């Protein structure tokens, strides 16, 4: 939506009433953690789940006696998919609620807007999404992977003989920092591999865009041109993902004709879609629900039980990477705080190097000393008929994260 939109209006008014949005939690023997995940707006369906995961993780830690002898209280909020509101609420949480750490943001634009706030207040933000990299703040823990250990392996797979030998690329993204940076890096990567500039096209749509007819027409005529196997690199976010997939399937394009690599596509985006005509499209994450690990079985049953017990308004059988990463975030924070014996951010930060946590993906997460990135495994998933992803490929181990891309 453009110009004076209702969302803008909502945002302004919500800013005025923001204190009421934060539910405070008062107790002396507790430590507070803050959540910055939207439960309204275009990101609601996927971000909303993360509030509950953080609560679930905190409940689990509390059941074991809390951290450093204190119970964890989780403070949630609703930044309404309105990027400046993330910063506003983040500041309130740090200054008024005195939270020990923030867990939040899905889109990079929201992270970028919270970044100055956590840096000014020397707070700690755990960011659970894979993203474009090229950032390294001492106040942010990047729990998920930069492109070098998520997007590039997947693109390599598709370009290789094992994948489809992709030669041409149609990039469709929402118009903001993450898709633009990812695409910039991809173009530089392809250039370094000798792919000519004529072999790709780049299109952007506004956030929340849903009318994909014309774009899918363009993709079909792009695919018909000679020059080798085309693929779509999809970086639209939120409700645009299912709308794009539906139009793609309805126009009769199958994954075996033109595969989609959906970089933000998760199991939750397939809810409500008939996935039979979408079988074979790909995504890449550091966790897939189909991961074979004991910790995953435990996590899945824990989530199902939590949904049932608390009446959480989300599916009990769907678990997505950012949920697991948010869970990992709380665990990493708890491990660091316990190791430091303190909740002070500088102390907790000093405890990061050497942290290890075996998470539901089956890989062991590790933090090195040189940056705030976490080493994660890589999965490539393939859409199946049952609105989920089968694991097509996974990395032998968790590659060391490379924060700054040499490409672009």
């Amino acid at each position, binding site marked *: 939506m*453009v*110009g004076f939109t*209702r*969302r803008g*209006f909502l945002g302004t008014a919500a800013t005025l009433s923001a204190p009421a949005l934060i539910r405070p939690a008062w107790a002396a023997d507790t430590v507070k953690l803050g959540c910055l995940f939207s*439960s*309204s*707006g*275009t990101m*609601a*369906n996927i971000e909303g789940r993360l509030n509950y995961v953080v609560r679930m993780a905190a409940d689990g830690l509390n059941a074991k006696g809390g951290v450093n002898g204190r119970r964890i209280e989780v403070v949630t909020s609703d930044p309404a998919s309105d990027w400046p509101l993330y910063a506003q609420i983040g500041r309130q949480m740090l200054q008024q609620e005195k939270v020990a750490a923030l867990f939040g943001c899905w889109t990079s634009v929201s992270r970028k807007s919270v970044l100055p706030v956590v840096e000014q207040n020397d707070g700690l933000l755990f960011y659970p999404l894979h993203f474009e990299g090229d950032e390294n703040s001492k106040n942010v823990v990047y729990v998920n992977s930069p492109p070098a250990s998520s997007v590039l392996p997947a693109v390599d797979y598709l370009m290789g*003989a*094992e*994948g*489809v030998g992709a030669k041409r690329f149609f990039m469709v993204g929402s*118009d903001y920092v993450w898709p633009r940076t990812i695409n910039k890096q991809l173009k530089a990567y392809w250039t370094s591999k000798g792919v000519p500039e004529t072999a790709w096209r780049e299109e*952007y*749509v*506004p956030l*929340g865009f*849903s009318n994909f*007819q*014309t*774009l899918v*027409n*363009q993709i*079909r*005529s792009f*695919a*018909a*041109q*000679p020059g080798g196997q085309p693929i779509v690199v999809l970086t639209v976010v939120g*409700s645009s993902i*299912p*709308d794009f997939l*539906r139009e793609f399937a*309805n*126009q*009769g394009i*199958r*994954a*075996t004709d033109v595969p989609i690599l959906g970089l933000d596509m998760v199991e*939750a985006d397939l*809810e*409500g879609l*008939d996935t039979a*005509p979408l079988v*074979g499209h*790909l995504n890449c994450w550091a966790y897939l629900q189909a991961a074979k690990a004991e910790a995953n079985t435990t996590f899945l049953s824990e989530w199902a039980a939590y949904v049932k017990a608390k009446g959480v*308004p*989300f*599916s009990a059988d769907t678990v997505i990477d950012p949920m697991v990463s948010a869970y990992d975030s709380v665990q990493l924070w708890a491990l660091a705080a316990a190791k430091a014996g303190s909740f002070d951010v500088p102390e907790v930060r000093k405890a990061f190097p050497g942290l290890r946590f075996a998470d539901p993906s089956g890989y062991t997460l590790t933090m090195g000393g040189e940056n705030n990135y976490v080493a994660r495994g890589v999965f490539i998933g*393939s859409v*199946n*008929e049952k609105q989920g992803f*089968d694991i*097509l*490929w*996974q990395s*032998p181990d968790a590659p060391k994260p490379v924060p700054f891309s040499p490409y672009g």
Partner: protein
Amino acid sequence: MAEGPGRFGLVALLLWAASLVASPALAAGAPLDRGAFTTALCGDGAVQGTAVEGILHASAEAESGDVAWAGTVLRALLERRLTCLGGSALLLDRAGAADGRDAATGAVRPVAGGRAPVLGLRQRALAETASGAASLLTGSGVAARRAGLATLERRITSVPEALLLRAASAETDPGLKVSLAALAQSAALSSADPARRLGAIRAVSESPSGAAFSRLSALKADPAYGSDPAFRGTLDAALARVARAVSIGDGLAVLYNGLSFASILFMAAAGLAIIFGLMGVINLAQGEFIMIGAYATYGVQEAFRRLAPPAWLDAYLLAAIPVAFLAAAGVGIAIEALILRHLYRRPLMSLLATWAVSLLLINGVRVAVGSQNLQFAMPPYVSGGVPLYADFVVTWNRLFAIAFAAVTLVLTLVILKRTPLGLDIRAVTQNRDMAACLGIRTRRVDRLAFGFGSGLAGLAGVALCPIYSVNPGMGATFIVDSFMVVVLGGVGTVVGTLVAALGIGGANVLIEPLYGAVAAKVIVLAGIILFLQRRPEGLFAVRRRR
């Protein structure tokens, strides 16, 4: 790569060797080594690919019993009903079954501990083609063979010509025989025989598409293009013909896209035009009435699932039409009676009140139903599409929306122009005070009109279910576009709303391919602002006195 990256090495090598042994044996027309084939399907990506490619080429000569068997196994593999256990493969009747039949021997065994291989994209494409070839050659019904042919048509470049010839000679259905012959002819583009090549070029140009254009263009690099005038002439004529057809198809697609986007805009804005035009209420909850309509549709679907025989389920979308209308109209009338009635002639207050209502409805639904996208079982008449001409595909869900919008338009016009209620509504719109003086109960007209406008939004909800995701926040997407349409069209006219929707929809679709979707929105909005500078009353203004 298949599941389990650790499985490379010796095992893979052995399987690879097994498949190499299997393929030449097939090509010679000897009986298929079923054991080796299934073992290869359980191997890694490269082994799978070689085996499936081998069976595709062998299908042209292999015994039909073997081809049919391979088709069954490949279909199971595609649907993940094939489980690898030890050295053999088991076929399951459905994914997740406890027992399966051994693919080679037919013995029934439990599948516990087995592994269902995941197909990579390249292998999936090959397996689809090979299983399509098997259905074409051995399918028992005409429909099955036709489906097989359609699969082969999609990947015609990878289909051996001999296979098509075999199918054509064995085919009994005359219609299918003709399609097969045409396809076989078009597969001969790289044939050594010049006459057959020319035939192939003509056959390819018979079914024009962007892909056909690329295939033909590639022939320009052929030496014959320079030396053989007949070849050159035929190819140039075919290319011109395909290019013309493709541009006509693209033109049709633009028309269709514009029309379908316009119909969505019109559906979303029609109710607003009446409410805004009649009462001057800026109803920010209009999008939520659309959402209520969509949720009512979901309710009807669930009711059908529980109460009606399964065969009727496909009819739920039609049955939902009156329910969605009444549900949204009911909520609208309740809101009018409880809140808006007290706020007439105070536009700012009513704007804030409807905004509050919209937040209330969104969050109410979120608490009651949850914020995930609702699960709809889309009936066949609103899923998929049919290629109509060249690259122009008519998608059923959009066609449904267009038809729906057309019917809504006609009914709305009839109600407004031909019924006593419509007369009252028009009278009140034009001059509220005079209408009241003449004995029209304006308050009652307001309420009914508000209900009617809300009901129209509810209908939009039904039409949008097959196109967009249904969740509590869906209405917010439409509200800005709706106001744009209503303001441009002229407040209070349905025809104006229609023309504005067509204009905005068409402009968006025309600008999008040139400058992108983001710029399209900006350009359209800027255009509307400029237009309203010249004509603040919009395209069609209702003459009224205040």
